[in-house]
C-alpha cells in the first residue's frame, strides 16, 4: 500500500474525563471536535466525512447543529466499549474508499453514577437472567479474572499493582479523572465488589469526549508536521468458545478471545511484532482485564504479567509502557469516548507531546486495544 492510500491522524482533541455537571455530553463533544480541528489547523467545513458514537448521551450527528451545517455525511456508530474504534474504522474506510480526504471521528458520553443499566432482552436473554442477579458486568470481570489467576498462578497483588500504576499515571495527567495516587494496600483494602476485584480495581462510568481528525496520504503531510500513521485497525467479533459477558453458559475450554484475533490481525496488517510496541493502551475496565489483555494481545506471555508489573516494565519508563494516561481506571469509562481517548494518548505520545508523563526515547510504534460486549475487540497499530 502506497502512502497515497494510508490514513493518518493529523489532529486530536479531548474534553477532560471525570464528572462535571455543568456540561452535557454534546458540550464535551463540541469542545473535543473544535480542539481536534484546531490541532489539525482545519475548519469543520473541510471535513468530508464524519462518524460519531455515544452510548447514552445523544445522537452524534446532531452535532452538525453546533459545528456548522456543511452537509457532511455523518454516520452514527454504536459498538459498546469498541465504539471509539468503530468511529475511526468508519472514517478510515471512507477515506480509503475515496469518499473524502479529510475525516473526523468523535466519541462522547455522560453516564449516570454506578453500574451500567442492563436489559436482558436487548442481549437476547430471558428476564430470569437479570432477575436472579447474574447479569452484572462486574461479576463477569471477576469470574474471568478469578479463573485467569488460578490458571496462570498470578496473585491478587498483581491486580493491585495494575491499579496503582493507573492512578500513578493519572495523577500526572491533566485530562484524567482520578488524580490521587493510591498504594497497593489501599487498593487491596478498598471495598469488596466481586472478589478477587475490589472497588479501586474497577473503573467507573464517567463522562468525557475525544475526537480525531484523519487525513489520507499526502493531504496528511500537507496539514501536519508529524502525522501519525494508522498502520492498521482490526475489528473482530468473538469466535466460538470465547468467554464473554452475559453468558449463561460456556463451552468447555480452551476459551478464545476476540482480542487475540484483533491483535494478531492488527500486527499482521501493520507488519510489526508485539515486541516492537513502545507505548500501548489496553482496555482496563478493571485490573484483571488489563492483566489478561496484556497477554491476549501478545505484549507478554500468559503468566508473565506479575513479574513485568513488579519490575516496572509497564511504567512509562519501562520496556512496554501501558496506559500512560491512567487508562479507564484513572479516566473512568464514558463508553463512546473511551476508545478515542486511547488514540488521543498514543498519538500525543508518538508526537512527543504527551499531556501527562512522556514516554522517553521518542517512541515510534504505538498500540491501542478495546474490548467490550458482546465479545468484540478492536486493535490498532499507530506509527510515526
Amino acid at each position: 500500500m502506497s502512502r497515497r492510500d494510508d490514513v493518518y491522524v493529523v489532529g486530536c482533541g479531548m474534553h477532560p474525563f471525570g464528572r462535571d455537571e455543568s456540561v452535557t455530553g454534546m458540550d464535551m463533544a463540541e469542545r473535543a471536535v473544535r480542539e481536534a480541528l484546531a490541532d489539525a489547523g482545519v475548519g469543520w467545513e473541510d471535513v468530508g466525512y464524519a462518524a460519531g458514537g455515544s452510548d447514552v448521551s445523544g445522537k452524534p450527528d446532531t452535532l452538525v447543529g453546533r459545528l456548522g451545517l456543511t452537509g457532511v455525511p455523518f454516520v452514527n456508530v454504536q459498538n459498546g466499549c469498541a465504539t471509539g474504534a468503530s468511529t475511526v474504522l468508519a472514517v478510515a474506510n471512507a477515506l480509503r474508499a475515496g469518499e473524502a480526504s479529510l475525516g473526523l471521528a468523535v466519541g462522547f458520553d455522560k453516564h449516570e453514577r454506578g453500574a451500567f443499566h442492563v436489559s436482558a432482552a436487548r442481549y437476547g436473554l430471558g428476564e430470569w437472567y437479570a432477575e436472579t442477579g447474574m447479569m452484572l458486568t462486574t461479576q463477569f470481570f471477576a469470574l474471568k479474572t478469578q479463573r485467569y489467576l488460578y490458571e496462570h498462578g498470578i496473585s491478587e497483588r498483581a491486580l493491585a499493582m495494575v491499579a496503582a500504576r493507573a492512578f500513578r499515571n493519572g495523577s500526572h495527567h491533566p485530562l484524567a479523572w482520578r488524580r490521587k495516587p493510591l498504594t497497593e494496600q489501599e487498593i487491596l483494602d478498598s471495598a469488596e465488589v466481586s472478589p478477587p476485584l475490589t472497588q479501586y480495581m474497577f473503573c467507573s462510568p464517567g463522562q468525557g469526549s475525544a475526537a480525531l481528525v484523519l487525513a489520507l496520504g499526502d493531504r496528511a503531510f500537507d496539514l501536519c508536521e508529524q502525522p501519525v500513521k494508522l498502520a492498521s485497525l482490526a475489528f473482530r467479533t468473538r469466535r466460538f468458545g470465547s468467554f464473554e459477558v452475559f453468558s449463561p453458559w460456556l463451552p468447555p475450554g480452551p476459551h478464545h478471545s476476540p482480542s487475540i484475533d484483533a491483535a494478531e490481525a492488527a500486527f499482521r496488517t501493520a507488519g510489526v511484532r508485539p515486541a516492537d510496541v513502545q507505548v500501548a493502551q489496553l482496555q482496563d475496565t478493571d485490573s484483571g482485564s488489563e492483566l489478561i489483555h496484556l497477554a491476549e494481545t501478545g505484549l507478554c506471555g500468559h503468566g508473565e504479567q506479575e513479574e513485568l508489573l513488579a519490575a516496572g516494565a509497564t511504567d512509562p519508563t519501562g520496556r512496554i509502557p501501558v496506559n500512560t494516561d491512567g487508562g479507564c481506571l484513572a479516566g473512568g469509562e464514558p463508553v463512546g469516548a473511551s476508545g478515542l481517548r486511547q488514540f488521543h494518548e498514543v498519538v500525543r505520545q508518538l508526537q512527543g507531546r504527551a499531556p501527562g508523563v512522556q514516554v522517553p526515547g521518542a517512541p515510534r510504534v504505538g498500540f491501542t486495544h478495546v474490548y467490550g460486549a458482546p465479545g468484540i475487540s478492536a486493535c490498532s497499530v499507530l506509527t510515526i
Partner: protein
Amino acid sequence: MTTRLIDESLFENPTNPTNPESLVHLEFDDGDAPRLAGARCSGCGTVVFPRQESCPRCSGRTMSAHVLPVSGRVWSWTRQAFAPKPPYRAPTEGHQPYHVGYVDLGEVLVEALLTVSRAEIRIGLPVRLTTVPAYRDDDGTEVVTFAFRPERDGER
C-alpha cells in the same frame, strides 16, 4: 403458598405440576424435581443452555432438547457484594451478598447461583444442582430458580 419456576424453558418438563410446592429444595436424586434443560446440536455435538434454535458453533438448525448433568465442579466463582440494580429482584428478606459462578458439567459450563459458604468456596469444589427461592411475585407466589450446592459424601 404457591410456587413457580422462574422460567419453565430452562428446565425439563416438571413431572409433578400438581404439587408445585415440591419444587423447592427438593433433592434431585428424588427423581421428580426439574433438571436443567439445554439443547444439543446434532451436527457438531455442542451443548448450549438455555436452549436455542440454531447452533452457535456450526450455525446448524437441528438442535434437540438436552437434559444437563446434575453434578459438576466450580470452574470459577465470585461474590456479589452490593445489591444489583433492577431488573434484579431481591429475595423477600432483601439482598444478602451471594455467590455466583460457572459450574463445569463436562459437556458445558453453566452460570449459576452457588449456595456455598465463603469458607468452603473454591475452584474445583464438587457441586450438585438444587433450587432456591429467587423472589416473590406481587401476588405472593414464590419464584424458584436453579443453583448449585456443595456435593455431599457419596452423592456422586
